[in-house]
């Protein structure tokens, strides 16, 4: 298909989204990621029966906690798609990359964020 999506996307392979721990998601942000998405199987079609349901719960919980932590909840998202939906995966990857650009560097990286905000202000003023 040779579909294109942003080269900033980094993929980490796991056997099932059920393996995704809240700790992993938090650590990705701590490491400097501006947005993270969890791509799981369609609901009801989990090869391991309920893994994606567990992951959905964890992602939803963390999104809620993000508001208190001062992070935009849009930086984290879970998507459900089948292995046959390559085009949709590329579209989702692209959407998350665009979201990250729109939201700018995450508040976890205060210096980068400050520089980005200053640049944004300058661009809108100029």
């Amino acid at each position, binding site marked *: 298909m040779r579909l294109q999506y942003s080269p900033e996307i980094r993929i*980490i392979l796991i056997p099932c989204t*059920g*393996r995704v721990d809240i700790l992993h998601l938090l650590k990705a942000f701590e*490491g*400097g990621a501006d947005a993270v998405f969890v791509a799981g199987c369609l609901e009801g079609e989990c090869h*391991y*029966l309920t893994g994606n349901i567990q992951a959905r719960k964890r992602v939803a919980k963390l999104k809620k906690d993000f508001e208190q932590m001062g992070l935009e909840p849009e930086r984290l998202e879970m998507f459900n798609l089948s292995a046959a939906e390559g085009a949709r995966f590329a579209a989702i990857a692209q959407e998350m990359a665009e979201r990250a650009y729109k939201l700018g560097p995450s508040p976890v990286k205060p210096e980068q964020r400050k520089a980005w905000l200053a640049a944004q202000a300058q661009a809108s003023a100029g």
Partner: protein
Amino acid sequence: MFIRFDLENKPKVEQAADGGLQVTVLDHILGLPVVLRPDLLTLASAVVPNPTEELGELFKVSRNAEGFFNEAHAKLRPVDFASDGIFLAGLAHYPKPIDESIAQAKAAAGRAATFLAQDMVQVGGVVAVVDPEKCAVCLTCVRTCPFNVPVIDYKVDAAYIDPAKCQGCGVCVSECPGKAIQLKHFTDSQILAQELALAAG
């Protein structure tokens, strides 16, 4: 000769001018009607599957929309199910003639024999392992495992996960509040190391 028809263009059976049978069917490759003059017309009765929902759920094997069982792969594993050690043959699979059913049953028996002939069965390395030192016997893994694999081993007062039964999904690993379970090849330290390395790059 086999001519496929679709439901919009069903074959027409008529009495010909000379009193014989005439079947007109649209050939989907030619795109033209084909007229046949048979001596005898036999209709195959419909084959509907037995109620398979309960059986399918019990053995965790997939079924298609009609209720027939699905093989693991139509070309590469035609008599296997996706789950190890379960095989299928005959009308449970799809409507087929008796000779095909017998051939498939022989194939299924052969596949079962290859499995049974092994002195030892190797299992995948991606399995969850409990650290008995950290396990608080909270039963979280017992409750969350979609395959009901974890059990409590009272000899060591910790959960035990049979590596031969573990499917390796990692749900228990992420749910364990004491971080007493690790999924081999996907341990927390491995995943975090990947994340930090990628985020830094």
